[in-house]
């Protein structure tokens, strides 16, 4: 939650998703109700399950896939690995949020040989701290990955530390039937986008559904505006603390956003993304910028009515080819007990066979390996895969691209403050910059 979500984040975990607002990772990974309730109890499981290591015939895997569906899929994948290599995988499943919150202790204690994680700043951070192992040799055997995926798996030292498995893109979603009824066209520039929004307002629709009660959805809006206005490299540098938040570039992002805010659904700070998605589903809103998981709020027979387009271009020099598409995958711990088997397992995870099993058993995700047999994709999945496939750069979402302490304790309150009072951009950015300097000390 958002990680940002949980917490004494214990207490948050005791709350059913219907109340707390399911975070998108839990949704994808699926850590909902039961898993969440078991969360605290499973804490103890974190990091202890290494006793089974040692023999050359097995390998341990720390998994955050605590929801029944993805958990089941993972079992099928590891079964496939056993069949092909004869190596037994001991899976140690921990509740999704708990896993994420305890990752520091987990990696410093006795982690499993291989563990689930996601691409982004934290992945590179663990690599740099020596908490994860270099797996460049595994990558040399992998095929079917675009350069963007390889880039997302690479640490600061140019070596690979991560094997991508699944992902989902962020885009602007809409209902085909509503758009046909009003004769709307997909906008490709900012002017078209604002003109379309104005037209929607005239037609009695809320142009852009919006919710930020949980703090993280607004990060998606900030990200895409930043990517469109300043480009991918600036996004990465800004997230790494190398660029100043007080710069004109950042101010321009907020300025643009301030111009768009009147087109967004009002009172967003009390709304969960589920409620905003339902306003789209109920045809009260025209568009919604969110991840592919927005489909969760649509019934099965409405899925075909759901479509999306990538956020329009703002600066022609930057284009509209970069986007947020968080990638989930696997990493290897620093001193795996069974290093050979761990590398074999990672190679299998990155291969076509594992991708096929994923794809066949879990329709809620896209698989990263382009060699997989994508015949089973829905139309929406196919389109999403094409969108990401054509992306020049893939960002991981704000809170995965920066330090977690900065994202959760500085950016979330700052963005909520901005939504409350979009006028004081100068004060806001200098407050962020001051806090950034105190957090990014090394």
């Amino acid at each position, binding site marked *: 939650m958002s*990680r*940002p*979500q*949980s*917490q*004494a*984040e*214990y*207490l*948050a975990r*005791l*709350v*059913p998703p*219907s*109340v*707390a607002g399911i975070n998108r990772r839990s949704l994808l990974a699926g850590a909902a109700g039961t898993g969440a309730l078991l969360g605290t109890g499973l804490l103890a499981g974190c990091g202890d399950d290494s006793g089974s290591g040692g023999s050359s015939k097995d390998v341990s895997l720390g998994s955050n896939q605590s929801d029944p569906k993805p958990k089941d899929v993972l079992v099928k994948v590891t079964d496939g690995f056993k069949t092909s290599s004869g190596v037994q995988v001991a899976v140690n499943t921990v509740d999704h949020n708990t896993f*994420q*919150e305890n*990752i*520091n*202790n987990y990696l*410093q204690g006795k982690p499993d040989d291989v563990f689930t994680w996601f691409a982004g700043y934290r992945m590179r951070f663990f690599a740099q*701290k020596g*908490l994860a192992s270099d797996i460049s040799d595994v990558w040399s055997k992998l095929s079917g990955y675009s350069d963007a995926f390889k880039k997302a798996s690479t640490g600061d030292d140019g070596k690979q530390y991560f094997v991508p498995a699944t992902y989902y893109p962020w885009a602007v979603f809409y209902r085909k039937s509503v758009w046909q009824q009003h004769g709307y066209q997909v906008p490709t520039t900012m002017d078209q986008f604002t003109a379309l929004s104005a037209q929607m307002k005239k037609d009695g629709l809320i142009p852009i559904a919006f919710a930020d*009660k*949980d*703090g993280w959805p607004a990060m998606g809006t900030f990200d895409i505006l930043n990517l469109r206005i300043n480009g991918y490299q600036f996004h990465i540098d800004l997230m790494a603390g190398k660029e100043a938040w007080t710069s004109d570039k950042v101010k321009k992002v907020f300025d643009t956003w301030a111009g768009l805010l009147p087109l967004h659904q009002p*009172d*967003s*700070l*009390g*709304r969960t993304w589920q*409620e905003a998605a*339902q*306003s789209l589903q109920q045809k009260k809103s025209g568009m919604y910028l969110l991840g592919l998981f927005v489909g969760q709020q649509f019934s099965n027979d409405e899925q075909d009515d759901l479509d999306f387009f990538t956020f329009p271009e703002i600066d022609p020099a930057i284009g509209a080819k970069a986007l947020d598409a968080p990638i989930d995958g696997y990493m290897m711990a620093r001193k795996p007990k069974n290093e050979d088997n761990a590398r074999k397992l990672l190679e299998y995870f990155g291969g076509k066979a594992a991708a096929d099993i994923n794809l066949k058993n879990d329709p809620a995700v896209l698989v990263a390996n382009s060699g997989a047999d994508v015949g089973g994709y829905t139309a929406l999945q196919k389109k999403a895969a094409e969108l990401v496939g054509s992306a020049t750069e893939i960002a991981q979402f704000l809170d995965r691209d920066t330090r*977690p*302490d900065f994202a*959760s*304790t500085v950016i*979330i*309150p*700052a963005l*909520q*403050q901005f939504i*409350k009072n979009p006028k004081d951009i100068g004060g806001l950015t200098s*407050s962020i910059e*001051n*806090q950034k300097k*105190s*957090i990014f*000390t090394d």
Partner: protein
Amino acid sequence: MSDLPLIQADRAVPPPATTTSTGGRRRRLRLLSRTDRVVITLMVLVPLLLVTGFVWLPAAATVLLSGTNWDGIGPFNEIEFVGVRNYSDVVNIYPPFVPAIQHNLLWLAALFVVATPFGMFLAVLLDKELRGSRFYQTALYLPVVLSLALIGFVWQLLYSRDQGLINAVFGSSIDWYGDSNVNIWAVMVASGWRHVGYIMLLYLAGLKGVDPSLREAAAVDGASESRAFFRVVFPVMRPINIIVLVVTVIESLRAFDLVWVVNKGRNGLELISALVTQNVVGEASRIGFGSALATIMLVVSLVFITIYLATVMRENRE
């Protein structure tokens, strides 16, 4: 052997015979046998160790960590001390801090002025043995029994802007949880709803223990109902009153659960406890900074504890 006397006089107190046959060294008079002393030592030592280990050491560690910039990664000997920087950061550049202090004080005031007196009032009413008082008692106490998750859910159903009961019934579109001017009051209503039941039960238990003859005597003397309560019953209830007061202060200082359920203590619902949790627990691991916040909270609590202890001790002396 179960009926060992507290003081084993036959063994502990020297028999008269030895006292008469003087001559040797004077033996110290021992009231407690060896077993007693072992038991007492254990009874003091074990709780002392527990309190030290689970309360004082962590508290001291928190204070110590608040002077570092530890992020939870790396061995202890790599922890870097940064002096009071965390504190100056908290006060100077951390926007949620000032609202959090204000909200905690507001919380205390609201519980103290509204919720606690109302709970006491309900207890007095229920003590009158009205018809169906069992039912009311259960209904009012129910919020205290309900799990936190359920409470969050119940109030979400009421307060949701687009789908909530309140806005649906009144046709309003108030953003109860999202508007930072409104949400603290909305949450305080929910918190008061719980607190009233708690106080009511505590106070009712106390009222049941008041000797009925006191009230009868007051009634015979012609005191009105309210006069009898304020002049006779209330002073007799002093121990319970103090407990109620302490519970109120504790509840307001540790207020946390509801705001956490609503929005993790952000956007108008900042509380010190929520800020500590945001920073320390979870992936953020801003342990040094969070410890500074926790230390500030500890100091605030100490102020109240000191006032309370000073009052109690002074009154005991009188």
